[in-house]
């Protein structure tokens, strides 16, 4: 028995040894002779690296199996990252990403992973001199080529059209960090996943709305199956044949009126063919549609639809209209606030009751049923009843009832195709709507004609200039399709996707690969050996960093301690730290494009409403708020704010902001010149601050720059004068009554909005309250200013609360983005994102002298139409300030002369500041300390590149040597 056991054991041992040997031999044979057995550079049997004898191509890939040469086998020349030492770039932010799915991410912290694990077709790099940026191909082999001619008749490209379709050739050998190849088809597949209608991915609009590069058909694809507004029933050309006889409308199953299978709908947020004039806008601004004429005594007469004079406006001695409005008796003043608010005066309520009915946020107004019927988007499906309400509403906008309006149109012969205009005018505002048809992916302008060629068809033509290449500094939301699809889960009946939430659910393709991840704790990235950049000779000397490590640390004190112990490569200084490190050799300032503003509510109506419900800070006091409606008062608040002291208290790294646009905006992206360095931009500042005529030879200031440098924005004496002027006006118009003055029991209460928990805003509130309380000393406001704060606001959308009139003042608000295109950016001050929607920018006009002619257009038209590249028609203004009757069409898009664009931009900038509803306060700048062992590429901050970033960071010592060095210094470094 024993002998049998021994024999069995021997046989088994022999079999094991033989099988092991066989495996080794077989593996070696496979590796050497079989080829194509390697996967991702590793033999699938024994785990050995590729050992094919045929060598590697110029990209470092095996000529037989195409896999990359592993780092361990590299020799000089085919993989330049040679240093085997460890160089860690370590940071300790207070927030780490929880999701970094390129298609859905919403948090800035997601970039902590995405920036390192992604690549782009084109990218910013230093020019040869190393002092400015250039855009260079990255994943792309070369610059884009216009191939529009090849696709005429498809994707909306007409014969002869150019700059609509671009071909981009990809570099060969692109890989994901798991070794899988990246081809043009991978980009296409990723785009299809981005635009999946069932997902409605957060970033999908980046390819059809955000930015200038809009992919043809992408919006139709993502919105297929959803209910969408198509186009206004009547176009902006107002062609007679476009108006539909209401008798031809049919009722759909749910009662919605239809025409040719399409629903009729209204968008409360949009005016349809009336451009930006939506019902919401009219609700706040009022409207006289019938026009005006001149009376014999020189007054301008505003008439309603019936021709009745409602209000008259005084004309000044110079012939220019003033802002004084009266009832037709020429004596009863009705002016309140801005020129379009006059109908709020009680004296004329009866006369213009139609407009009054539309006021007060639509409560009790004729349009209320429309607002009640609106869905979450503000869309109203129009049934017969609601269509009548819309017609009545439009009549009310003309200041009359529908019957009166119809009679007036009848009398004036205003008919379209024989139909009374009063009944069809609403079609200029209403839309056709329908459930979007299915849209084929084949009709989306994003496809791959070959393995390495990607074609992008644009909705709007773009020349191959900086802006196109800037937009192409993207990866088009490239994801690893296989992994991405495996992360989609519809089992609950809802599309969910957890791509990019862990190491297992993410595949990158950038210089670094995610190797450690624990949510809310730590992320670590190491070099991605499959990244093409490590095989490109042009990148030699870059990316010395071998590891990127982020540890979550919530408190500043620990972060600073870690930095001083040499455990971090950079430290963002707080206000409290500035005094200690202000003279440090390692201190760097980082400016951003944002400007922080003081934004005020100048709207009499909402101020009056808030005033009625306000609780006085001092019991028994009468609360007054409407004084904020007086321009002088708002100006006084601005001039009495010591911006330098404000910065020192709240944000010592910030400078005094003197204009809407900061110094970081680029006027000419080709040359990289800054907008604020142009004469036009300097004049915008000087005009606003009243120094336009105080510079030059023999004057107070030598040049523009000297004059601008002198501006602090702080003029306490001038502010007192303005405060007193505002007081006098307030008394004159009855905001402050004689009874209030005699009793002394009144307070001008200002509600400052701020997020509940934020040191900046807490300190800012205290500062402003004290500053303004002191500023009114010596004026009649002394002792009558009170402040309250509203802390119920959220942290990211509290601007809305000012826009809706819930608070009187916001501070520390602003915008970011669009550094390379201030012309587009200006739209935030006139479009839907403005903090001052109370002032109707379509009615405020601005005269600009262009090519020897003074042209007049509204602020909205100059900014949101003309500067965006669309044409506007402007009346030419004569020397007398009146229209000459001549009209000029003008646009100022990318192709327009640079001087014209700058002139319009700077003029608009001044005009918006002069409205005195939004005041620049602070520039946005941060300061940080650089670790002693790290060197930046440039000391100067270069737009688009910073100081070189992780690409160019170099280390004087590796981690081990550095730790030793820090210990030798006593464990704590001195950065002071």
């Amino acid at each position, binding site marked *: 028995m024993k002998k049998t056991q021994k024999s069995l054991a021997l046989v088994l041992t022999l079999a094991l040894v033989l099988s092991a040997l066989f495996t080794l031999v077989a593996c070696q044979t496979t590796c050497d002779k079989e080829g194509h057995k390697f996967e991702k550079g590793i033999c699938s049997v024994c785990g050995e690296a590729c050992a094919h004898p045929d060598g590697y191509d110029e990209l470092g890939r095996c000529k037989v199996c195409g896999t990359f040469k592993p780092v361990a086998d590299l020799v000089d020349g085919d993989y330049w990252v040679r240093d085997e030492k460890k160089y860690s770039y370590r940071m300790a932010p207070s927030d780490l990403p*929880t*999701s970094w*799915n390129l298609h*859905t*991410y*919403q948090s800035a912290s997601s970039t902590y992973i995405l920036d390192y694990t992604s690549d782009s077709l084109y990218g910013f790099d230093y020019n040869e001199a190393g002092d400015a940026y250039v855009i260079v191909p990255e994943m792309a082999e070369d610059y884009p080529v216009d191939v529009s001619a090849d696709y005429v008749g498809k994707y909306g490209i007409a014969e002869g059209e150019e700059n609509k379709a671009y071909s981009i050739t990809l570099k060969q050998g692109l890989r994901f960090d798991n070794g899988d190849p990246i081809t043009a088809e991978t980009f296409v597949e990723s785009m299809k996943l981005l635009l999946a209608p*069932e*997902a*409605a991915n*957060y970033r*999908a*609009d980046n390819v*059809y*709305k*955000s930015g200038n590069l809009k992919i043809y058909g992408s919006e139709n694809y*993502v*919105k297929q*199956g*959803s209910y*969408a507004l198509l186009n206004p029933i009547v176009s902006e050309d107002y062609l007679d044949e476009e108006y539909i006889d209401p008798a031809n409308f049919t009722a759909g199953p749910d009662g919605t009126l239809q025409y040719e299978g399409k629903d009729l709908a209204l968008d409360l947020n949009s005016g349809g063919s009336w451009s930006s004039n939506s019902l919401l806008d009219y609700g706040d601004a009022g409207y006289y549609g019938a026009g005006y004429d001149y009376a014999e005594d020189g007054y301008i007469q505003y008439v309603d639809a019936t021709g009745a004079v409602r209000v008259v406006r005084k004309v000044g001695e110079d012939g220019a209209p003033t802002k004084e409005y009266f009832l037709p008796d020429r004596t009863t003043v009705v002016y309140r606030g801005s020129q379009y608010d006059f109908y709020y005066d009680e004296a004329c309520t009866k006369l213009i009751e139609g407009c009054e009915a539309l006021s007060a946020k639509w409560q009790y107004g004729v349009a209320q049923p429309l607002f009640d019927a609106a*869905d*979450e*988007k503000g869309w109203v499906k129009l049934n017969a009843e609601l269509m009548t309400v819309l017609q009545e509403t439009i009549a009310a906008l003309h200041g009359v009832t529908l019957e009166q309006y119809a009679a007036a149109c009848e009398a004036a012969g205003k008919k379209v195709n024989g139909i009374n205009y009063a009944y069809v005018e609403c079609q200029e505002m209403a839309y056709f709507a329908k459930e979007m048809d299915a849209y084929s992916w084949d009709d989306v302008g994003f496809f791959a004609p070959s393995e390495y060629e990607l074609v992008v068809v644009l909705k709007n033509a773009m020349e191959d200039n900086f802006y196109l290449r800037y937009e192409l500094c993207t990866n088009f939301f490239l994801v690893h399709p296989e992994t991405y699809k495996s*992360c989609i889960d*519809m*089992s*609950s*009946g*809802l599309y*969910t*996707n*957890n*791509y*990019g*939430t862990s190491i297992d659910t993410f595949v990158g393709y950038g210089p670094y690969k995610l190797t*450690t991840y*624990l*949510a*809310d*704790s*730590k992320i670590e990235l190491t070099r991605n050996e499959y990244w093409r950049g490590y095989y490109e000779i042009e990148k030699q000397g870059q990316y010395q960093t071998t590891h990127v490590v982020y540890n*979550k*640390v*919530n*408190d500043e*004190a*620990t972060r600073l*301690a*870690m930095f001083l112990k040499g455990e971090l490569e950079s430290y963002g200084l707080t206000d409290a730290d500035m005094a200690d490190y202000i003279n440090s050799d390692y201190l760097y300032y980082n400016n951003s494009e944002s400007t922080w503003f003081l934004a005020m509510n100048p709207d009499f109506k909402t101020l009056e409403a808030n005033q009625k419900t306000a609780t006085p800070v001092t019991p028994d006091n009468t609360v007054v708020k409407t004084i904020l409606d007086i321009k002088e008062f708002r100006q006084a608040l601005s001039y009495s704010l010591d911006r330098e002291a404000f910065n020192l208290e709240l944000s010592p790294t910030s400078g005094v902001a003197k204009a809407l646009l900061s110094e970081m905006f680029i006027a000419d992206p080709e040359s990289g010149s800054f907008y604020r360095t142009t004469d036009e931009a300097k004049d915008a500042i000087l005009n606003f601050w009243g120094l336009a005529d105080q510079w030059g030879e023999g004057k107070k200031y030598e040049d523009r720059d000297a004059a601008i440098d002198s501006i602090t924005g702080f003029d306490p004496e001038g502010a007192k004068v303005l405060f007193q002027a505002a007081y006098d006006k307030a008394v004159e118009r009855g905001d402050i009554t004689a009874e209030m003055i005699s009793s002394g029991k009144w307070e001008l209460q200002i509600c400052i909005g701020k997020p509940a928990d934020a040191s900046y805003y807490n300190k800012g509130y205290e500062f402003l309250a004290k500053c303004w309380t002191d500023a009114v000393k010596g004026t009649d406001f002394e002792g009558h200013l009170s402040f309250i704060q509203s802390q119920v606001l*959220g*942290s*990211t*959308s509290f*601007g*809305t609360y000012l826009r809706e009139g819930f608070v009187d003042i916001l501070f520390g608000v602003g*915008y970011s*983005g*669009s550094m390379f295109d201030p012309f587009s950016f200006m739209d*935030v001050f006139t479009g839907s*994102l403005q903090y001052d929607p109370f002032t109707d920018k379509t009615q405020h006009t601005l005269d600009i002298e262009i090519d020897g002619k003074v042209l007049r257009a509204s602020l909205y038209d100059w900014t949101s139409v003309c500067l965006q590249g669309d044409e506007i028609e402007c009346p030419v203004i004569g020397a007398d300030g009146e229209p000459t009757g001549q009209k000029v069409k003008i646009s100022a898009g990318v192709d327009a002369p640079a001087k014209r664009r700058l002139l319009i931009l700077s003029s608009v900038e001044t005009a918006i500041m002069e409205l005195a509803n939004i005041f620049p306060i602070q520039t946005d700048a941060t300061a940080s300390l650089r670790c002693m062992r790290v060197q930046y590429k440039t000391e100067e901050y270069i737009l688009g590149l910073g100081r070189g970033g992780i690409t160019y960071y170099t280390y004087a010592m590796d981690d081990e040597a550095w730790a030793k060095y820090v210990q030798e210094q006593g464990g704590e470094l001195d950065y002071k």
Partner: protein
Amino acid sequence: MYLFKYVLKRIGLMLMSFIVIFTMCFVLIKLLPNMPAESFGKDMELIKQRRELLGYDKPIMQQYWIYFFGRTAYEYEGVDEETGKPETKVVYEKKKLPEDILESETYTTRNVGGVIRGYFGTSEVLYLGQDVWDVFAQKVPYTVAINVYTMVFAVPLGLALGMIAATNKNKWPDHLISVGVIVFVSVPSFIYAFLIKYIFYIKLDIFPPFVDAINGAFSWEFLKSAVMPIASMAFGTIAGFARYTRAELTEVLTSEFMLLARTKGLSKGQATLRHALRNAMVPIFPMILGEFVGVMSGSLIIEQMFTIPGVGALYISSVQAQPTPDYNFFLLLTGFYTLIGLSAGIISDISYGIIDPRIRMGAR
């Protein structure tokens, strides 16, 4: 039998309370402003499209139903567009069925998702795209671990100090312990945390400034690096237990049955351990139980100070999340903590009967 009936009754009441609390929370959170603000270059229609897919546009009670019972899936036999092969297709709205399928009614329905099928929803803000239960389950061990370590360290120490103080009443050990107790009960744990961190990281550099959680909550690395948070949390617990134990034990030690025990011939130590301590534990044991039940809720500040990836901040974050509250996290945690709280009450009450058989729960 009394106890069984009592427990059943309490569980029934607990479920009723749970439903009322949860329904109130569901309605209230859904009433909060929940539409992101318009931002530069964003297509609000797309955001609304996603919200419609999520069902946020539906009436609250309909959302409530979906949350618990899921949605209806409509399945039909279709053809794969790419391969042309027949396949079963699913849509989640009846109106999205192809017209021919709808007319011929050749589709089947089944319900999917919903709490009753173990689906608590997906995070739309804080942990975008992730199943909220998975995230919670991933984070809970860290919170439990740090609390359990604290309890294991603090409870025996607290009891021991309480016993020492009680048995040395009005002597110097009692005075010393009592002063310590007052100090440590009065000062919140994050103050100790600052001090401990300052001394042991910034000055002495003995411990790391944050815990090493990469290897899991029950790893040696975690325990080693968590000394500072454990110590910070333990001071208060030690002091609390010491105070209660001292008070209870002092009272029991003066009881007549203790005199009897001593006259029986038991030593002071024997009498204290066997008789006094057991009686003193009647009110203390539920406290210990309560502490253990509470370990799930975590310590918001300590977790944040030492970067412990637990659940401490999750509940508050789910309400404060921007641009909208993270409904599913809030609802899951509301349900979870409500159940924990209600269960703790029942367990605590029952435990009285176990420790002291004279206490008969549910008996008349």
